[in-house]
């Protein structure tokens, strides 16, 4: 499982970075979204792969850390997902505004010479 997840993260990140380096704003947005998937999964994978062990405890008992998946990376990623949405929205609006003002969707605000 680890190897699959690792390769998957790598492919997501590589696709994202490729798009990040492209000249069209829309490509950059899609690229950033792909990178954020990869990074979220990467942070999440720091808690190691654990199947069928969600960090939900039985009521009335103290939890056993070895029996459940690591909750800390999950908590980190949860807020990152929501904030990632906000950032995508912000970037999108900035790019739309830039497009409205410059008349082009090139990341530099003008077509390459």
């Amino acid at each position, binding site marked *: *499982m*680890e*190897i*699959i*997840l690792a390769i998957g993260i*790598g*492919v*997501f*990140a*590589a*696709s*994202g*970075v490729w798009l*990040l*380096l*492209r*000249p069209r704003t829309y490509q950059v*947005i899609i*690229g950033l*979204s*792909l990178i954020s*998937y*990869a990074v*979220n*999964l*990467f942070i*999440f*994978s720091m808690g*190691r792969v654990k*199947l*069928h062990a*969600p*960090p*939900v*405890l*039985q009521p009335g008992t*103290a*939890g*056993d850390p070895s029996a459940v998946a690591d*909750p*800390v990376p*999950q*908590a980190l*990623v*949860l807020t990152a*997902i*929501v*904030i990632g*949405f*906000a950032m*995508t*929205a*912000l970037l*999108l*609006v900035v790019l*739309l505004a830039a497009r*409205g*003002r410059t008349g082009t969707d090139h*990341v*530099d605000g003008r077509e390459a010479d």
Partner: protein
Amino acid sequence: MSNDALLLAALVLPFAGSLLAGFLPTHARNLAAALAGSVALIGCAIVVWLYRSVATDVPVRLRADWLPSLGLDFTLRMDGLSWLFALLIFGIGALVVLYARYYMSAEDPVPRFFSFLLAFMGSMVGIVTAGNLIQLVFFWELTSLFSFLLIGYWHHSAQARDGARMALTITAAGGLCLFVGVLLIGRIVGSYELDEVLAARDLLDNSNLYTVALVLILLGAFTKSAQFPFHFWLPHAMAAPTPVSAYLHSATMVKAGIFLLIRLWPVMAGTDAWFYLVVPAGLVTLLLGAYSAIFQQDLKGLLAYSTISHLGLITLLLGLGSPLALVAAVFHTVNHAIFKASLFMAAGIIDHETGTRDLRKLSGLYKYMPFTATLAMVAAAAMAGVPLLNGFISKEMFFAEAVADHTGSLLDDSLPYWATLAGVFSVTYSLRFILGVFFGPPPKDLPHIPHEPAHWMRFPIEFLVLICLLIGIVPSLTVGPLLATVMRSILGSDMPYYSLALWHGFTLPLFMSLIALAGGVLLYFLLRPYLDSGIEGPPLVRVLKGQRIFEKILTTISLQWARRGEVLFGTRRLQPQMRIVVLLAVLAALSPIVLQGLPGNGALAGTPIEPGFALMWLIGMGCALAAAYQAKYHRFAALVLMGGAGLVTCATFVWLSAPDLAVTQLLVEIVTTVLLLLGLRWLPKRIEDVYPTRPPLSTLIRRYVDFGIASAFGGILAFLSYSLMTRPLPESVSRFFVERAYTEGGGTNVVNVILVDFRGFDTMGEIVVLCLAALTVFALLRRFRPAPESVGSPEQQRIQDAYDDAEPDRKPGDTVTDYMLIPRLVMNWMFPVIATFAVYLFMRGHDLPGGGFAAGITLSIAFVVQYMASGTRWVEDHLRVLPLRWMGLGIITSASTGIGSWWFGYPFLTSHFRYLELPLLGKVPMASALLFDLGVFALVVGATVLILIALAHQSLRSSRASQAAEGGETWR
């Protein structure tokens, strides 16, 4: 009031007064002056009152906890030395305030002036009463800051701005050196408390950090006290209003450095390093200052250089390291403050009444203002060291110390000659000041006809000159006991014998004084023709301008290097910047692996592969790659493919035991897709392929390079995550969270308990970020102007309208209205269902996957679905969502839940939980964290909806533009 409370009052009062003066109306000149004057007088009274207890040789102390975790206390401490300086600060401060009331023009915003002046006064008091060194540095930097504001008070003048900037750069940089020096002392001694530092001479002497600490502290003191080679800021600070010069350059700002040297004198002076660092600096400053003062054409410039020279004299005395020299230094500090303040005020009066300070224009003023002239003459005579005036006695002591043997070095042996020479110079420039301004032919073409100033404007000078005379004639009766108290506070019991008498018989110092007086007069008349020629600046050293070097360094750093850096690294194009960022990230990730290798040896056996998982990821990777390939020309396809990658991410979370993440990811996926769909419309039409046949080589190379960078990035990330996943999990904070989630947080869903309870403060920060992002989107879209070609109706609508036009029985718009009627109805009905689901997600969040974030996004989806079903206009007419209110409510709820715990005496965001028995529902867990989560929920709803509908609303803009005026944007 007890003594320590009075001490605190003396420190707080100027700052309170400053704040108050800042709020006075711009032209409340008298009120502001009265306020500042009473603050200074009350301060004076407090200081005088405290003398009784200071004279018992036990410092007045006030101690309060400041940063107990770092072992830092807020300590005020007033011993004899602090007392003396505090008296000067408040006393001369009061006189300066009175003087400034008449000096400042009614057109200037005078309350602001007094506000700065009071704040500066408070900072100075802070320095002298600081009981620990960190506190001292703090107030030290405050004086730099407020002196900057004071010097630059007439900010419309470029000279004032430059002078202020220069003073700030030099003194604040020195302050940073001092800070490091103080930290070193704290490290050597183990405490920053002044009492402990002053008792730790042995520790300091034996430390190998002593020299470093000494150099740093001297840098602080020398920059502040304008010692060579940092002296050049002081003449430039003369662009300040004259009351400021009179205050900063006599009793306060520049004396802060002297104060620090005296304060640390008992523990740091007397070593060879001290002698060879301090004495040469003082000597050069003394001679250079005095020499330059002779040749100034600006009245205030002359006084400024003479100030530098006197500061050099005091520094030199402190450098000698003998107790007697210390006595002379302290005594001269007081004397200099008194006569220099009065001289600056006199110069200000001359400037004020004649309109110029240029010595080439001024002459023969005695006839016009005999009273001021007499006062200025007495003060100048004190400066020159004429007998019967205070300057004479301390200068005599200086000569005596110069003659005395200290280290027997060449420097020490030559001191008497240098001292006499400096004496000659000081007589010359004093003469120049008096003879040049008040005598000679009557003045020609002055801007104003001079006359005596208002009586109260002259009063401060009269008062100070009276003190000059009193100290000069009967020193042991006036200043003697005070000086003794001060010396006891510095030296403790081993007081040297000294006599403050006027007459010591025919001694060598007296002989030197006579030579200085005669030589000075002679030199003046020799130089007279040269001075009258009107050349600016001193001969020989005119080329050696510290200011020019300073400007050069500043230009080099802030302009040339910056420009070169911009040429080297800068580009206005985004892609190269992105490449650099990504490459740096790759390097940063690689370097530790290459340098140190991976931690732990040998990988663990991985979890066995499940074929479903592998298959799913094959699809996921395909989606990502295809999205990357298609994003340029097929935006919609790329969006769908990206959604596919998102779904695989989501499924991975489910598979690998992270249900909370899966829920959130799924919901966010929905809103992101809607968001991008809304944005698609405003992007330009796809351009046909720029390169019909084959792209040029440069483009191809760029693509290959980018492909290489992207592959490297992905490869490293894959390698890193694989290596980490196959190594055992180190012990981390997770154990704490898992073990306590239920027993202390009252929830079984550990992730949610971490978010809303254990790390609630982080979550608080995160929702604020979300809030800011949403508000920024909102603000940007309010001014949004779409590109002209995307304003028209979308293609689909045009086809529909064309169909309506063609059919005789249909009106245009009918098809749009009826379009997808049944799905639309279903979507309308979905609203309560989705909303209920949101509430369900929210309620179960503490124990099962769900929670405020997920619930918030769910509810916003419910709103967005309405927009999709019925169109923006219909929803805006029927539903007032008011997302800004949701957001405000959310922030307030979360913050007040946190603040609520203060009431019960717990830190911010401490949570409490218990089970409540409710009718019908049974036992329900009620945690205060639930309220916090409610805030998160409301904020997430507000922010998400705000972003989405602000964007959705834009589609109305284009049609509204043609319909002219329309109602306001009600959805807000």
